[in-house]
C-alpha cells in the first residue's frame, strides 16, 4: 500500500527529502500553500486558542483568557454529553450497516451480472445530491400522511404507520437509515476499487480447488480488501461523526434532542447563543476524539502491514 511510489519511475529528483522545495519550485507551491495556511491551518490554531477564552458574539468588553474554564463547564454539561453519546451512536449506527451493505453491493457489482450498469449509476446518485436535498427527499418519504413509507406499510397491512421523524424512539433509527443511504456510494466505490485490485487468477485457482464462496471470500478476497476496508471505515466514521446538514434538515436535532449531533449542538451554541469560546471548546473535544480514532486506524494499518 504505502510508499509504493518510492524509487518508482517518475520519482525524479534522486534521494530528495533534504531540501524543503526544489529550487525554483516555490512559485509553483505558494499559490496553494498561502490559502491553506491562512484559511485552514491558521483558523485551526485560532480555534484552539478561542477555546481558552470567553469570546462571545456582540459583546462590548474585550475577550479574556479564562484558562480551562470552558472545559470544566463542558465536563458538567449533560446536554453536551448527551449529544456526544448520540453522535457516537449515530456514527457507529451508520458506519457499520453502511459498510456491510456497501460490501455486498461491491461484491455484486464485481460479478458479471446484467443490469450491473444500472445499479452502478443508481449507487452514485446519493453522492451527487446535495445533502440538503437528500434530507428533504427523505422527509417526503417519511411524511406521516403523504409519504410513501407509511402508504406501503398500510398497503401491506402492517398497520397505520407513524410519524417516524417526530417519534422519540424512531427518530434516531430513521435518520440513521438516511445516513446509510447517503454514504453508501463512497464506501461502495472504495471497496470496489479494493476488489478490482484482487488478482482474478487467485479466485479461479481457489474455485478450482473446490473452495466455496465463503471460503474464497475469507481466504482470497478479504485479505486483499482489508486495507481499503479499514481506511474507508475509519473515514466514514469520522465523516459521520462530523455530519451536520442531513440531520439539520431531517429533524434539526429533535425530537427533544434525540438526534442532536455534536455538530448541531456546537452550531447552536456558537451561532444562536453566540458562545464562541464555549463552542470552540466543544470543537476541541470532538477533534480529540477523532484523533484517537485516526490513531487507532493507523495502529490497525501498521498491524495489518505486518500480517501481510
Amino acid at each position, binding site marked *: 500500500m504505502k510508499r509504493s511510489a518510492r524509487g518508482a519511475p517518475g520519482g525524479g529528483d534522486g534521494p530528495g527529502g533534504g531540501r524543503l522545495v526544489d529550487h525554483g519550485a516555490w512559485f509553483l507551491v505558494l499559490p496553494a500553500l498561502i490559502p491553506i495556511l491562512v484559511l485552514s491551518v491558521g*483558523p485551526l490554531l485560532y480555534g484552539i486558542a478561542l477555546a481558552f477564552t470567553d469570546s462571545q458574539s456582540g459583546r462590548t468588553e474585550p475577550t479574556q483568557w479564562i484558562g480551562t474554564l470552558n472545559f470544566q463547564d463542558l465536563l458538567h454539561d449533560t446536554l453536551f454529553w448527551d449529544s456526544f453519546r448520540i453522535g457516537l451512536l449515530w456514527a457507529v449506527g451508520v458506519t457499520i450497516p453502511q459498510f456491510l451493505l456497501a460490501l455486498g453491493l461491491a461484491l455484486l457489482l464485481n460479478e458479471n451480472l446484467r443490469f450491473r450498469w444500472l445499479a452502478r449509476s443508481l449507487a452514485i446518485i446519493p453522492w451527487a445530491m*446535495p445533502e440538503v436535498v437528500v434530507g428533504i427527499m427523505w422527509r417526503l418519504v417519511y411524511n406521516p400522511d403523504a409519504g410513501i413509507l407509511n402508504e406501503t406499510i398500510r398497503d401491506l397491512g402492517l398497520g397505520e404507520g407513524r410519524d417516524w421523524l417526530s417519534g422519540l424512539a424512531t427518530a434516531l433509527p430513521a435518520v440513521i437509515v438516511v445516513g446509510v*443511504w447517503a454514504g453508501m456510494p463512497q464506501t461502495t466505490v472504495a471497496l470496489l476499487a479494493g476488489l478490482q485490485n484482487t488478482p482474478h487468477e487467485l479466485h479461479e485457482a481457489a474455485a478450482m480447488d473446490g473452495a466455496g464462496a465463503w471460503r474464497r471470500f475469507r481466504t482470497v478476497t478479504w485479505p486483499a480488501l482489508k486495507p481499503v476496508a479499514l481506511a474507508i471505515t475509519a473515514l466514514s466514521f469520522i465523516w459521520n461523526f462530523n455530519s451536520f446538514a442531513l440531520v439539520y434538515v431531517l429533524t434539526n436535532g429533535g425530537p427533544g434532542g434525540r438526534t442532536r449531533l455534536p455538530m448541531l449542538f456546537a452550531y447552536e451554541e456558537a451561532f444562536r447563543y453566540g458562545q464562541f469560546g464555549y463552542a470552540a471548546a466543544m*470543537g476541541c473535544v470532538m477533534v480529540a476524539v477523532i484523533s484517537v480514532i485516526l490513531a487507532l486506524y493507523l495502529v490497525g494499518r501498521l498491524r495489518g502491514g505486518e500480517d501481510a
Partner: protein
Amino acid sequence: MRTRKSARASQYLALLGYLVFLAFPFLWLISTAFKPPRELGSLHPTWIPKDPTLANFRQAFDEQPLLDAALNSLIAAVGAAVIAVLIATPMAYVMARHRTRLAKAATGWVVVSQAFPFALVIIPLFLVLKNLRLINSVAGLIMVYVVWALPFALWMLVGYVRAVPTELEEAAAVDGAGKVRTLVSITAPLLAPGIVATALFAFISAWNEFFFALVLLKTPEKQTLPVVLTHFLGAEGVADLGPLAAAAFLATLPSLVVFAVIQKRITGGMLAGAVKS
C-alpha cells in the same frame, strides 16, 4: 450446476433489493414534484401522479428567490472550481515529481484534511471573514470553498500528473525545451482532461455545500441554493410538499448532470487513489 444457478438467482434478487433501496427515495421526490395539491393531500398517495402538473415549480419560484440563489450557487461553485484548480495544479505537479519534505508534508495534510474538524474551524473562520468584511458575501464563501476543495483536488491531480510519463518531459528537455515550455506544451495538454475532471468535482462539492453557506451568508438575496431550500421547510417544519419537492429536484439536476459526465473519471480517480495511497 444447480447450486450455481440458485446462487445466480440470489445474486439477482440481492441486486434488485439494492436497486429498490437506492432508487425509491429519488423516484418519490420526482413523483411528489409533479403532483397537484389534491393528490398531495390525499391520504392514499400514489407512485405516479394521475394529473402531472408543473404548478409546483411555478409556486416554488414565487415563494423563494430560487433564481438568485441558483446564480449565487453558480458563482460560488464556478469560482471555487476555477481557483482551486489553478492553484492546485502547480502544487500537485511538485508533489508528484519532487520528493521534497514539503511534498511529503502536503500529502500528510491531504490525509488529515479528510478528518478536518469543521466544528473547530468554522468559528475562527467566521471571525476572520467578519474582520475582513467578507461575511455575507459570495467572495468570502469562495475563499472557504477553495481551501475546502484543495485536498481532494490535490489528491486527484497528483494521480493525473503521475500518469504523465516523465520520459516525455525528458525528451522535450533533450530537444532543448526549457522547463516552462515543457510544462506548457507537453505536460499541460496531457493533464487537461484530469484538470477538467478535478474542476468539475470541485464544482459539485461547492454546489452541494451547506454548512459554511449557512453560517457565512446572512441575507436571503446572498444565500446559495441549499440554504434557500431550507426556507421551504418553514419554522414548524411543516412544508408545502409540492414546491419543496420541485425546488429540491431542480437543485439536484446540475450536479447529477455533471456527475454523470465525470462519473467514470471520479470513480477511476478514487479507485486509483484508494489502491495507491
